[in-house]
Structure formats: structure tokens, C-alpha cells
């Protein structure tokens, strides 16, 4: 299975670039990666008493931006206020922000070591680049909105919340799969 995926992706990238000499390393066994990820999560619990996350950092960034442009408006909005704190500490000195920056570095390090860092666009064979980017934007918007309503995203609610058997997190996780499978048929042209 890994070999097949590897060959397919090789073909697509070949189309975009004239030269391929460094072969990407195939992805590792998903179960072993899962154990690794689980251990990272466990480390976060044991060291910090909290799990991983991502959407929170993005929300902080938005809240800070809004407060710089329209401070009055931001201070009246309790959603932004939650991320801005009470003014005693810099809201950007946030655990999640530093964690997310780490993810950026980690992804790059791992990708570089496996020769998987390549400028490109991820998409299926039956869709144009333009449509893909439009969908990427829409998808991002929906996920951002939905994640904030549910108080978390896949990393925070599904992964972290799942491991601590949080009821709301399991509800969220199940609904994400439900929504995804329900919508999959309508967007199959984008991917397969």
C-alpha cells in the first residue's frame, strides 16, 4: 500500500517539476507513528497537565490583530477577550503559540530529512489548481469556524480530548467523521 501511494505521488510531482533525482522516502508505518504521536501527547500531559492544540494559537493571533486595529471593538467582544487575557501579560506569550511554532519547525525538520519538502499543491488529478485553492480557502474557513464553535480542532479536541475520554471531544470527533464522509461524495472530484 505504501509503495503504491509512493509511486502515485511520484508521478504527480514529476508532472510539476522537470527534475526528480532525490527520491522521497516513503512514509513510516502508521501504527508506529501513532505510538510516537501518542507518546508526545502523553509527555505534554505529564509535563504540563494539558494536551496539544492548534486552533487556539490561530485564535490568539486573530484576537491580537483585531485588538491592534480596533482595540475598542476587541475589548467589548468576549471571544477576543478570552484570548487577550487581562492585560497583565502579553497575549502572544501563549503556550499554544510556542507549541505551534514548534510544529512548524518540526514539520520542516522531518520533511527535510526525508526529502519531502517540495513546493507544490496537493490535489487530485481531476481538478484545476485554481479550484483547489478556492476549495482550500473555503474548507479552511469552515473548519476555523466549526472548530471555534466546538472549542477545539482535531489536535485539541479529537486527539487530546479523545485520550482523556472527554465526552464533548468524542462527540466532536464522531461528528467530524460524519460530516467528512457525508460531504466526501460531493467533493470526490477534488481528490480521486
Amino acid at each position: 500500500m505504501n509503495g503504491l501511494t509512493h509511486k502515485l505521488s511520484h508521478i504527480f510531482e514529476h508532472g510539476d517539476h522537470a527534475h526528480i533525482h532525490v527520491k522521497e522516502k516513503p512514509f513510516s508505518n502508521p501504527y508506529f507513528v501513532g505510538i510516537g504521536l501518542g507518546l508526545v501527547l502523553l509527555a505534554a500531559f505529564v509535563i504540563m497537565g494539558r494536551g496539544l492544540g492548534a486552533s487556539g494559537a490561530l485564535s490568539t493571533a486573530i484576537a491580537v490583530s483585531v485588538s491592534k486595529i480596533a482595540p475598542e471593538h476587541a475589548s467589548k467582544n468576549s471571544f477576543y477577550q478570552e484570548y487577550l487575557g487581562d492585560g497583565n501579560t502579553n497575549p502572544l506569550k501563549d503556550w499554544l503559540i510556542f507549541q505551534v511554532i514548534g510544529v512548524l519547525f518540526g514539520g520542516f525538520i522531518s520533511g527535510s530529512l526525508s526529502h519531502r519538502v517540495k513546493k507544490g499543491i496537493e490535489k487530485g488529478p481531476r481538478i484545476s489548481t485554481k479550484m483547489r485553492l478556492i476549495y482550500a480557502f473555503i474548507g479552511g474557513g469552515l473548519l476555523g469556524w466549526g472548530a471555534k464553535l466546538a472549542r477545539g480542532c482535531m489536535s485539541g479536541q479529537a486527539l487530546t480530548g479523545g485520550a482523556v475520554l472527554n465526552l464533548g471531544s468524542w462527540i466532536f470527533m464522531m461528528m467530524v467523521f460524519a460530516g467528512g464522509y457525508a460531504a466526501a461524495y460531493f467533493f470526490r472530484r477534488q481528490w480521486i
Partner: protein
Amino acid sequence: MSAPFFKFDYFGTDVSLIIAFLIGIAFGIALEKGGFGRATILAAQFYFTNMRVLKVMFTAIITAMLGLFFLSVIGFLDLSLIYLTPTNVMPNLIGGLVAGVGFVIGGYCPGTSIVAVATGKIDAVVYLIGMFFGIFVFGEMFPSIEEFFNSTAMGSVTLPQFFNIPYGVIVFLVVLMAIGAFTAAEWGEKKMANKSLEKKV
């Protein structure tokens, strides 16, 4: 009982930020190695051609869950000090649905999109911009949906508490469910692989 370390004052906030960064790096490496920096792999989940997402995610969940459980039972970790995001049934439900649709359309989730940006994917950058926009819209809409946001609140509640079943039993059931899902996933992948081979013939 000495964990979680931060809550027992073994180090301060500034050190915790460095730790955040290091944990983030490990998180990013694990995600990238899992193939989560590729939208095609993430979306393949929903077409049964590549079930990596399910395998990695559930393996991670049961690894961490078992770790938490046994570390607590031996008294090393104080489970009650682990943060639990409050449960709000309807927001979790609706938010999950919307997020699921967004996942299939966009092809990423927040954490994986960052890994994808780190490996050069332009669609991930666009996705992130979309995410910022979505969060901004939510923020602006917040006053009108604040009531819904806080509705059907149940506080911080776990599955064992909700079903009134012992924690250990739920742990066992989750492990069974995960193994079952893995078996189904392997079977599904094989079927799809055979199908596509048949198509070629």
C-alpha cells in the same frame, strides 16, 4: 504523586514556553512522518483508499489514554489535574459537522496545515488564510451566537462519568473499538486497492 510537573511548580511559565516549543517540534515531526502534511493523504481517509489518518489518530489516542490511565493508577500522575475542555453538546455537535465538511473541502486541519506549510504546500497557505478568516468571522459573529455557544453545557465530564461505567472498562472498550476500526480499515484499503487494480485490467 508528582505529575503533571507544571502544576506542582517544578518550573515556571517562561520555562513552560520553551517546553511548548520542544513539544511542538516533536508533534510536528510525528505529524509529518505520519504523512499528515499531505492533503491528498488526509482526504483519502474519506474515500477509503488510504486510512492512515484513522490508524495514526486512534493509535495515538489509545497510547496516550493507556499511559494516562496506568500512570494515574500507580499514583504518579494526578488525573484530576489534567485539563478537560468543558462539554457543550450542541456546539460540539454542530461544530464537529461543520469542521468535518471543512476538512474534506480543505483537505487539512489546523495542525496538519502548519506541517504542510513547513513542507512547501501552497494550498496549505491558502487554507491557513481561510482558517484565519473563518475564526475572524466567528469572532465577529460571537455576540449573536454567544448564547448558543454556551448552551447544553455539561461542564467537564468524561465518558466514564457520563455512562457511569468504571474508567478501566471504558479504556478497554476504547481499545477494542480502535482495534476493530483498524481491522476494518485494513480490509477497506485492500478492497479499494483490488478495485483499482481491477479497473486497470
